[in-house]
């Protein structure tokens, strides 16, 4: 009786026990040395009496036991010698039974029993039968477990197994099996009984202690698994039913879980496969609290490993209908345990699915069946709140995706989206991300509109707002991350056939346009570019066949694009739309579709006018427009004039003078395109530049007035550079004297400046000058051209 024994007390008791044990062991050794059997028996019995203590926890008891164990090895050696000296082993077997205390008596009996078997004077099976029977005398759980574990230990190499030197007449291995089974049964009973001993409040501690002892029980199963005599039939008819009977009948959660696990781990997979029905039949009979799902998962893991270990085994799986049995069993387990949390049920399905995927990768119908069962279980239940359950569903859904490396296959599973429906919105998104990642990782191209449709059905959590989601809950960054993945996904939707590709684009468009303002700006661009890619592809093939009934013509695509961008611009996301328009315009230009390009540019201008209000944005926009326009070659004179006129007009109307100035000199490029049939209108270039100069001047004066200091001379230097550019390009309107004048102007500006000069401007100017000098010195045509410029 130890109510609340502290660890300290226990240590003390252990020390006392060890001291007592060693004391008697000393006298025992002396007796052994002098060949005094009587004293040896007396002191060994006294020594073993230390093991009668009830005060130690199993952990400490084990320590004591191990010391006793070591001493018993020496005693065993002595007994062996004693029999060699002529002492009958049978007499010895009787002699040790004279001990009055049962525990020492049985330890000694087991020890002599071991010698007895080795001497082969008595058949091993008789001794073993006697020992395992006599051990019933110890009903104290801990002491009994250790004693029987000792028995198991000394007997494991002496079982009358097939091929063993102790094999007797007839089927003596049956006796070996019988022996181990009986020892196992008794040990398990003791182990289970342990929980009922002592006050209830210490149950937790006892459970812990029991867990520490479980391997003693499990060892029997291990020994059993190593008996060669057990073939499949024997296992099927005797061993497994007996073990399972014990497992089921002990009605103890801890034991059932551990032992089921043990059975699965120690016996060969092949046996499991052939006895699947029996094994699985036991599962629904276990206590409802037993964690069957881990057990079954283990089993399925092992089986699937086994299945993949060799291709020859697979037919066996088919033959025993492993899948059907497992699936059936899982159904039964779930039905028989209505208390089981949804999480558990799903975990089971995950394991089954993993099994199916590994064993029958070709049977998509099985996979779908598993998912179907899961749907059935989930149906009628509200959306899952449990965190773990959600995780398991994610695992369930990820498994096929990962396995097939190919979302294509997953898309064929009809139950797949139905399970997704049971997820909450957050998880749906997570799942969608998983799917997308899988696609990205494996570079899977989704090649039909139909699949795209299915896919978007799966990831709809990302595509559009779900009912009841509060947008503000979302972290901005996460949101962008998600949408980025969608954007990446769009690029994975691809088909070589332009018509199908167009279909895909249409489908995607349909979905993403539902996305709402926040998403559009992130998802539209990839779609646009994807479409543009198609356009470019068509452009390459253009010459080959131009039939009217082909739906995928650039024109048509541009129409769609226009609609998409329009949708985007109404979001409003004007700057982005504007850029996209310009992109499209460029593409149209490349396709030689003047009206389309014109239309796009017009749209761009309209957007500029109506939507782009911010001055900075305007600057950027106008520069973009100018840049695009500059590259356009498709326009006729009239259209071109209109557009360039517009562009220059807007440039001059920018809010800030420097911005105006820069935009205007940029416009100069619109009139001088360095290509074969590009426009080269020197006059208008000069006009632009002069206008820029004027604006720069005005800016300079304004700066003088307002701040009393010089304005940005930089503008002049920049304009000078433009002059030089066109001068070199051979624009006749740009003369060396004009440049000369400009240089002088700048120099005066810089010198006359009372204010401190801007170092970067200085540097810019001086390097410009250096460039001119360099060109002059270089000589040749260019040198000559530069000659007149004096510095």
């Amino acid at each position, binding site marked *: 009786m130890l109510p609340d024994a502290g660890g300290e007390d226990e240590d003390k008791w252990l020390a006392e026990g060890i001291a007592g044990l060693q004391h008697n062991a000393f006298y025992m050794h002396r007796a052994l040395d002098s060949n005094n059997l009587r004293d040896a028996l007396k002191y060994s019995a006294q020594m073993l009496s230390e093991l009668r203590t009830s005060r130690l926890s199993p952990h400490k008891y084990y320590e004591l036991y191990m010391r006793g164990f070591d001493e018993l090895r020496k005693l065993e050696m002595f007994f062996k010698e004693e029999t060699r000296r002529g002492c009958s082993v049978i007499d010895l077997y009787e002699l040790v039974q*004279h001990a*009055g205390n049962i525990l020492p008596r049985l330890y000694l009996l087991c020890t002599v029993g071991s010698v007895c078997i080795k001497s082969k004077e008595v058949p091993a099976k008789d001794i073993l039968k006697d020992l395992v029977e006599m051990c019933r005398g110890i009903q*104290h759980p801990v002491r009994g477990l250790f004693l029987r574990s000792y028995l198991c230990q000394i007997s494991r190499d002496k079982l009358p197994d097939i091929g063993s030197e102790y094999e007797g007449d007839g089927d003596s291995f049956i006796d070996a099996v019988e022996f181990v089974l009986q020892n196992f049964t008794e040990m398990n009973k003791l182990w289970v009984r342990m929980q009922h001993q002592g006050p209830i409040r210490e149950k937790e501690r006892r459970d812990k202690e029991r867990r520490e002892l479980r391997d003693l029980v499990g060892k029997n199963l291990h020994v059993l698994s190593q008996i060669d005599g057990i073939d499949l039939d024997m296992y099927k008819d005797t061993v497994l039913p007996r073990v399972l009977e014990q497992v089921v009948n002990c009605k103890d959660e801890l034991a059932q879980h551990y032992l089921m696990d043990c059975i699965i781990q120690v016996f060969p997979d092949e046996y499991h496969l052939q006895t699947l029905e029996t094994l699985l039949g036991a599962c629904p009979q276990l206590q409802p609290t037993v964690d069957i799902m881990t057990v079954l998962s283990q089993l399925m893991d092992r089986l699937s490993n086994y299945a993949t270990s060799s291709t020859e085994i697979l037919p066996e799986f088919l033959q025993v209908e492993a899948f059907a049995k497992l699936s059936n069993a899982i159904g039964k387990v779930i039905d028989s345990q209505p208390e089981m949390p949804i999480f558990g049920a799903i975990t089971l399905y995950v394991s089954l699915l993993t099994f199916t995927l590994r064993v029958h990768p070709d049977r998509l119908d099985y996979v779908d069946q598993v998912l179907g069962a899961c749907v059935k279980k989930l149906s009628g239940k509200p959306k899952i709140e449990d965190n773990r359950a959600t995780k398991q569903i994610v695992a369930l859904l990820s498994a096929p995706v990962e396995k097939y490396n190919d979302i294509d296959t997953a898309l064929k599973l009809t139950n797949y989206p139905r399970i997704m429906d049971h997820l909450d919105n957050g998880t749906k998104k997570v799942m969608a991300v998983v799917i997308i990642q899988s696609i990205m990782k494996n570079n899977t191209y989704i090649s039909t509109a139909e699949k795209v449709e299915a896919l978007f059905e799966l990831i709809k959590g990302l595509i559009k707002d779900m009912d009841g989601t509060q947008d503000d809950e979302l972290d901005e960054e996460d949101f962008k991350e998600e949408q980025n993945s969608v954007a990446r996904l769009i690029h994975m939707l691809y088909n070589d056939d332009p018509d199908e590709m167009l279909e895909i684009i249409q489908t995607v468009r349909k979905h993403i346009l539902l996305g709402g303002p926040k998403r559009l700006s992130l998802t539209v661009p990839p779609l646009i570019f994807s479409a543009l890619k198609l356009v470019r592809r068509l452009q390459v093939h253009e010459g080959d066949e131009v039939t009217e009934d082909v739906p995928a013509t650039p024109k048509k695509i541009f129409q769609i694009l226009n609609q998409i961008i329009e949708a985007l611009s109404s979001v409003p996301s004007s700057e982005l739309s504007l850029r996209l328009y310009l992109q499209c315009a460029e593409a149209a230009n490349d396709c030689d579709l003047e009206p389309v390009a014109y239309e796009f540019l017009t749209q761009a201008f309209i957007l500029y006018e109506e939507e782009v209000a911010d001055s900075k944005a305007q600057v950027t926009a106008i520069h973009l427009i100018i840049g695009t326009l500059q590259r356009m070659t498709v326009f006729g004179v009239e259209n071109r004039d209109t557009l360039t006129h517009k562009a220059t007009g807007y440039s001059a109307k920018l809010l800030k003078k420097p911005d105006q100035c820069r935009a205007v000199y940029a416009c100069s490029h619109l009139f001088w395109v360095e290509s074969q049939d590009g426009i080269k209108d020197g006059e208008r270039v000069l006009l632009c530049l002069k206008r820029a100069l004027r604006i720069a001047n005005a800016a300079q004066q304004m700066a003088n007035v307002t701040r009393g200091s010089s304005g940005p001379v930089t503008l002049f230097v920049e304009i000078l550079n433009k002059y030089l550019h066109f001068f070199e390009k051979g624009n006749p309107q740009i003369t060396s004297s004009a440049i000369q004048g400009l240089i002088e102007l700048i120099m005066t500006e810089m010198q006359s400046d009372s204010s401190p000069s801007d170092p970067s401007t200085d540097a810019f100017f001086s390097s410009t000058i250096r460039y001119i000098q360099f060109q002059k010195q270089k000589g040749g045509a260019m040198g000559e051209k530069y000659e007149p410029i004096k510095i």
Partner: protein
Amino acid sequence: MNYIIGAFKPPCIIKIIFSDSKTRKQASIKKENGQTTMVPLFQSQETISGEVSIEPFHGKKVEHIGVKVELLGQIELYFDRGNFYDFTSLVRELDVPGEIYERKAYPFEFSTVEMPYESYNGVNVRLRYILKVTVSRNYVSNIVEYQEFCVRNYSTPPTINNSIKMEVGIEDCLHIEFEYNKSKYHLKDVIIGKIYFLLVRIKIKNMELEIRRRESTGSGPNTYVETETLAKFELMDGAPVRGESIPIRLFLSPYELTPTYRNINNKYSVKYFLNLVLVDEEDRRYFKQQEITVYRLLE
């Protein structure tokens, strides 16, 4: 001094030698002073023969009015000190009155002596066999010499030897059924048995089997009963549950048992009992006692 002591000392040495003393088996018996000594072992119906030698001390003579040897079977009850009951008494006259000057030997023989009772040395009673040589003298006390010997009688295995089987218990508390394979055991026998636990509602700590000897002496109101526990043999450690069966295997050889003696010469009885004891965690003892018969099997 020597002279004075010499005056009270017997003038001769008397020796009793059994004729087959070299070959005869011996047994140890306990003397009054607690020491054990080895004496010849006989059984009933044996012939006890030997030689009595009388050797006077040098230069002395022994005058006597007759020499005799007696074979006595005595029962001595300790509470009735000094009272011997001779249940057997045989006499052989060895010499007619006369004088002995030198060593003289007298052969004797008691043929097929009836010795129905075994030698026994108990708590309150002793049964012993002695040879008593008496040199009778006039005026001075007789010279007497004793030689004890041991008697053991053997029996054949009983023809009927039923097992002992019994169900006992305390209502709603403890029900057990136990079984001993026999009711009659010989001295080197082994008790095999089983205890079935049919109902266990008490917290049992352990269970043991005791061998108890009950010696009752005297009769009527003067009966003295003495019980000794000769063996305590632990059968079980810990608390069993319903349905357990615990094996019994108890070797009798290590214990100093005698056969069961029933009403020896109407003076005493020695009986043996097996006492099954269950001890609970509060050290309460529950027990059930069963008599067994012990007999001596011819080896």
